[in-house]
């Protein structure tokens, strides 16, 4: 254990590329290289369990998804048939898949924009303005994030209830019966109804993330800008946003990943893709194909599409939002 603590930080760089970087060393300084090698071995051994787990549980299954997408297989039978890209050709003509894709894209775009904007505004209000009971608000906004999705589905089933739900009930109390809707039964509305539940679930989490980075912005910047006559809105766009931009970028990528998953869980718990497949999302459709339609290979080809799609969107978002990091 001593080898870990006695060596100072500067000796680290050679460790980071253990294979290539320290091989020429033995000829020049044999004694030092021996300790470096021992240390490298120790480090390698330390990361071995993590690497093994990562390979077994992440890399191998992912590679398998790609491989399986080229086969037809029911999931149980011993015979798998190689069909090349047939599954993807079928996908292109599968209207239900296209609808699921559209829903996923819609949720991804709308929910991401709404959640992130709302999270930012709420965080700015909570950090910059003096509001009574700030801690209570922060707690209340954060609660949905720790609730189980099944509980959220039950809550929203009560909110959206067409007869005595919160939304329709409020509209009735306000004599706005004309605006009452069958929130989970209208094929044009149901995706948005799910989107609202997703925003409600995640906005608190992102608010807390933004609050933490906003509170790190030095107060002096705000004071100086206030002297120059900048109001809260100007300060938000010209000081707060640019200074927490790196955080926003990270959370954007993060959110795109989690929105794909969250939409699946919420759809499964709330509508099962109904009415008549109108709220199906990519993951729920993949699940149905792979497990209930016994088309495992086809399901995996949907998995590949999801993988490629989320990867592409994350990449695009990351590229589009790239800015020179600002220091303060």
């Amino acid at each position, binding site marked *: 254990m001593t080898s870990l603590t006695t060596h100072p930080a500067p000796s680290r760089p050679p460790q980071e590329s253990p294979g290539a970087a320290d091989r020429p060393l033995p000829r020049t300084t044999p004694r030092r290289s021996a300790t470096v090698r*021992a240390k490298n071995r*120790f480090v390698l*051994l*330390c990361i*071995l*369990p993590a690497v*093994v*787990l990562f390979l*077994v549980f992440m890399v191998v299954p992912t590679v398998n998804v790609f491989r399986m997408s080229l086969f*037809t297989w*029911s*999931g*149980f*039978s011993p015979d798998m048939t190689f069909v090349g890209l047939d*599954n993807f050709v*079928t*996908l292109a003509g*599968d209207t*239900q*898949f296209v609808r699921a894709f559209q829903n996923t894209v819609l949720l991804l775009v709308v929910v991401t924009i709404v959640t992130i904007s709302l999270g930012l505004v709420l965080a700015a209000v909570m950090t910059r303005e003096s509001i009574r009971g700030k801690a209570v608000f922060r707690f209340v906004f954060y609660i949905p994030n720790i609730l189980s999705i099944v509980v959220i*589905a*039950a809550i929203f*089933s009560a909110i959206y*209830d*067409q*007869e005595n739900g919160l939304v329709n009930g409020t509209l009735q109390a306000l004599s706005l019966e004309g605006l009452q809707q*069958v*929130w*989970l*039964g*209208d*094929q044009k509305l149901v995706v948005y109804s799910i989107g609202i539940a997703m925003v409600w679930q995640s906005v608190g989490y992102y608010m807390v993330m933004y609050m933490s980075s906003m509170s790190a912005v030095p107060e002096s910047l705000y004071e100086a800008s206030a002297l120059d006559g900048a109001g809260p809105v100007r300060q938000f766009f010209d000081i707060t946003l640019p200074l927490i931009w790196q955080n926003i970028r990270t959370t954007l990528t993060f959110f795109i990943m989690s929105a794909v998953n969250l939409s699946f869980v919420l759809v*499964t*718990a*709330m*509508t*099962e893709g*109904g*009415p*008549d*497949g*109108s709220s199906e999302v990519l993951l729920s459709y993949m699940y*149905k*194909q792979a*497990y*209930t*339609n*016994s*088309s495992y*290979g*086809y399901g995996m080809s949907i998995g590949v599409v999801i993988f490629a799609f989320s990867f592409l969107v994350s990449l695009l978002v990351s590229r589009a939002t790239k800015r020179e990091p600002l220091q303060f």
Partner: protein
Amino acid sequence: MKKLLLTTGVALTSLALLAGCASSGGAESGKETLEVAALEGGYGVEMYTELVAAYEKLNPDIDVVLQTSKSLEDEITPNMKAGRYPDVVVLGQGRAAGLTESLIKDEALEDLTPVLDATVPGESVTVGEKLTAGIVGGLNTNPYGTDETYLMPMFYSPTGLFYDQNLLATHGWTVPTTWDEMFALGDEAEAEGISLFTYPTSGYLDSFFFALLADVGGTDFYTDVMTYDEDVWNTPEADEVLDIATRLLSYAAPTTVGYANEQDFTKNQQSILDGKTIFMPNGTWIVNEMAEAPRTDGFEWGLTPLPAVSEGADRFITTSVESVWVPSAAKNKDAALDFVAYLYSDEAAEIFTGSDAIQPIEGLADTLEGENATFYQVYDEPGVSALLGGFASTAPVEGVDIKGTLFGSADSIISGDRTEAQWQEDISAASEKLRQAGD
């Protein structure tokens, strides 16, 4: 030395981490172990534990490991994918996960025809002799349309239109026997603010459509539809089926589609208990499922087959039959077959009946009491016969879900998002794809 210790330590840690993923082996008590997996349905678990105790008493050298769950598929599927199969599985077709169907499609079930000729353990009659005539032989026991039985019928229950006898009586209405009477009742009820029809979720329309297909076109037409006969959905019979269904859906309670989802389907069922809707397709489990729900005074469950197409025409009642099967990959097949035969013993039947689970054993239905007696009486109504089966299994077809197309579209028909013509076209296309896969 230190290095050696370190290496060993790290290696052990990684091993321990991986070992956590492996399963622990079975009990080694010298006895033969029989793994039984059963779906915890509306009948509860108690009857299975009693059954296992009774079986172990009869066969002291067999240790039965019982696994029950409401989502049995989720629990046994991972093990099955890893090659560890239960010996006996009690699980019917028509479940969302479709595990039984998957294994049928894969021809991964053991042929259970010998069980029919086997003597029931502890008795002198064979299983085949005890079973109700005609219960074995349909697509749900002989899924490949051959003489070989792969799924033994476990419990059967009539599915049909459930209603409140008291609601009809207080309004002076009678149960309609023809579709014309049905729609006339719908108009009459509408005038009083009561809807004619609802369904919990569109999936519950399966029994409705099966019976309607047979009512309209007879069992031959029904079989043609179930086996995806060419152009079967473009026949006059199919037109009539969809006409009746579309007309009935136009009488659906306005709240139906909004509640026809996983969270709210009980609210559709509740509308029957509240006296707001007259009929819904369902199964006998509804009594237990809604046992705690509030209801109108004098509420009394009733069950009727679908109305006849014309006066005095044959009517069919879709009978849901849960199945027991043995995976071909099971380890103790002999013990499994013996256990399956035991399920039809008087002793087992008594245990099951105690939980309202009725087996298709000759004469058993006559011994029933209470609501169950009323339900099983539908088979005695004139011109009514039982209808078994479901869609034939084919090789999986990517992206084609005929049940979703046939039943799920009901939501869209009610909301007006799809027309009857589009509906027919979609079903026909799905049926054709499955026919090609079956060839």
